[in-house]
């Protein structure tokens, strides 16, 4: 038992050291963080230098008689009022960004307000709020002051964390399959079979080493995202993401170490494992009620907002079971050399 434990740890350490000495692994680990953080900081820089489109002083064209009804509220909403006999034309000719006027309601006897705008953004929404109050409509709008952190940003940052977790899970497949492929091609698997330890220890050691390297890289990247944007549900994303990455490593390793795998090349098993992982994530997104309880699929379920209480336990246990199956499969088929 002691020998088995020592073998697993030694292989894990050697695998970890081998991985971080590979240029493509280091680049792969740094890539998501640099890309995502660079994109976010670049966006902040551009918004900081050019000003937020939300902060623009929007102009509203109205006829004189309509403007007289709402001019105080329009001024209070920091909108620039432009009196124009033909407000709709003022927008078409670029003399104002938005226009509002009254016209006869085609479905009733009274009048209604019409707002012409390029988009239904926050500024148009503020104008609609003023006009709804003026018209004493059946429902009115209250625009709350912008909080330091909007719910939209919280959702977006969470999505960014999920994309990173998905990317690391795909890394797991490629690196798991790559480790097994290389070791078999270089004759390392044959040499390891001569050792007085069970063959499954080879898979367990590789998975521990790979899991630690990828897991640390994933945690650091998520922490970076969390540092910049304070992600929504960081623990759920990190937990489900780590399980997905470790399971993906096991699936990749297992795909290349299947019976007769030596005859099947690298591309087909790799594509199969990548396709399986993608399909699991799709299952989670398409059927979140089921996917939330399964490893890998739980990432897809999280993406559509499903994270039931208690799901982390079955996700982790099933993930460990899948890793166990992959290790057993390696042992049974001797890293793909056996039948």
């Amino acid at each position, binding site marked *: 038992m002691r020998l088995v434990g020592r073998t697993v740890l030694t292989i894990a350490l050697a695998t970890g*050291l081998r991985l*971080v*000495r590979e240029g*493509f*692994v*280091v*680049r*792969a680990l*740094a*890539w998501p*963080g*640099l890309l995502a*953080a*660079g994109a976010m*900081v670049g966006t*902040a820089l551009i*918004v*900081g230098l050019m000003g937020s489109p939300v902060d623009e002083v929007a102009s509203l064209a109205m006829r004189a008689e309509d403007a007289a009804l709402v001019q105080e509220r329009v001024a209070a909403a920091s909108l620039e009022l432009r009196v124009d006999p033909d407000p709709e034309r003022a927008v078409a000719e670029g003399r104002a960004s938005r226009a509002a006027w009254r016209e006869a309601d085609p479905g009733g006897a009274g009048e*209604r*307000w*019409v*707002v*012409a*705008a*390029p988009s*239904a*953004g926050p500024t*148009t*929404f503020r104008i609609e709020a003023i*006009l*709804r109050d003026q018209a*004493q*409509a*059946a*429902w*009115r*709008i*209250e625009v*709350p002051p912008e909080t330091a952190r909007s719910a939209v940003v919280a959702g977006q*940052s969470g999505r960014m964390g999920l994309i990173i977790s998905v990317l690391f899970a795909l*890394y797991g497949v*490629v*690196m798991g399959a790559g480790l097994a*492929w*290389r070791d078999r091609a270089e004759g390392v698997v044959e040499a390891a079979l001569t050792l007085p330890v069970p063959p499954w220890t080879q898979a367990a050691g590789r998975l521990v080493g790979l899991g630690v390297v990828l897991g640390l890289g994933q945690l*650091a990247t998520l*922490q*970076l995202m969390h*540092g*910049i*944007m304070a992600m929504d549900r960081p623990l759920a994303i990190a937990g489900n993401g780590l399980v997905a990455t470790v399971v993906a490593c096991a699936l990749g390793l297992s795909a290349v170490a299947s019976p007769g795998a030596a*005859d*099947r*090349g*690298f*591309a*087909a098993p790799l*594509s199969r494992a*990548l396709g399986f992982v*993608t399909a699991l994530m799709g299952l989670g997104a398409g059927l979140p009620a089921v996917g939330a309880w399964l490893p890998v699929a739980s990432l897809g379920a999280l993406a559509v907002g499903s994270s039931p209480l208690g799901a982390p336990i079955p996700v982790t246990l099933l993930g460990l079971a899948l890793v166990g199956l992959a290790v057993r499969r390696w042992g049974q088929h001797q890293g793909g050399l056996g039948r």
Partner: protein
Amino acid sequence: MSTLSTALPRPRRVLAVARRERARSAAGRRGLSLLLFSLALLLPAGALPLGRGPELPAVRGEPPAALAGQVRLDERATVELRAGPPLTVVARSLPSELREALLAVEPQPAVELRLAPRVPLLPGRALLVALLAISMLTGPLAETLPGEREGRTLEILLASSLSRLELVLGKWLTWTLSASGVALLAGLAGMLTGTLPVGPWLLAMPVALGFTVALGLWLVRGAADLVGGAAVPMRVLPVVALVSVGLSMGLAQLHPAVAALVPLGGALALAGGVLPGLLPGALALLSSGLAAGLLLILTARAVDAQGVAPVPEGPGVLGTVLSGALLFALAVLGPGLFEVAGAPLSRPAVSLSAGGLLLGLSAAVALARRGALPELGAPRALLPGLLAGLLLALLPSLWPVFGLPRLAMVAAPAGEGLGAALLFGLGSGLWLRGALQPRLGAVGAAAVHLVVLLPLDPLRGLLIVGALALLQRRFGLGPALLAHLGLALAG
């Protein structure tokens, strides 16, 4: 040799390479396995109805009885309803589904919005099929040039009378036709089930996949083996596809013809049905087609120039350390930049711990790549480290230190500072003393310390970085790390 690659490719030879590539990939069960899995993934994506049906808009608060069955209650919703009359909608914007639901409260809207016509932002099903087909190309691309290189058959091919361009074109043709065939099959299945109408995607999808294969071949031109060849496209292709299609869809709001000029993005947007008109469609096909041709020529030249393209070396110790510094700067400066941009987003204490973690990890990678740990120092040498740490810990209270970490810690909410400080002390200590000083020497490490971590206080910072560098040089890594921890805790 170079004249061979610049000469026009001979179709027969290109087809011969393509036939060989197909035979290689279809050998044994591997070809069937790949085809079946591609179809298993793409056919449902093209032919089955997607989504979970229309979802009710989420609100919180007190929806009136008239909205029963039209909205769902969710405490995290961004829209709050307050009972009236009149009913008050508290929100910063209104989803169109909720606006429709509110017709139950106000059948004749008191305010009508007339919005300018915009290019549709939601792409169609064909884009999903094309993106999935792109994701399936990782394995096959690894088998092309890297597979030949690993199997030592590339040398034989290069020694033959084939030109480099014919070799690259043959491989490109095989995988473009295979990927396009499977994707079009999924699209045709979608046409049969009614999920996909006949449209420009029939042309755009093969062009987008042709560009992707050309880009993939260029990316793997220097990969030494299958594993390296699989890692690069997997990392780059999804990002390029998503960024280019996002860019194209953003530019489509300016003018569809501008959007069409984005290579790959234009073709994917056309496949997704967000580029209306004949001119944008033609431009999208042309831009991706020309860019694919250019990439194929560049790949052929890369193979041509040096026979077997050189294997790019991984980042050196210095590169690893510098990327760590960049990540640290992003983590610490990022939230500050959002503040400047007028959208404060984050908590600085977290960013400091992220910075510390990233510095520590980049140091660990650098040390593992070098394979040697700096001398830790004798146990009795820990005493000077402890003393130096205490002295440095006292220093800021006598003589305040300013710098990025200090700024971040000052802004940290109470209770979150200690863990972040410990992580930062350990991470920055390992990075500076463990990875950087053995490589750059005491003076170089001190200069980097000053520039990266204490740029706002160079004079006082000089004393600190000098003391820490000397401590490492005289007593080893252990005492220096203790001093770093002391300094971080004092901050």
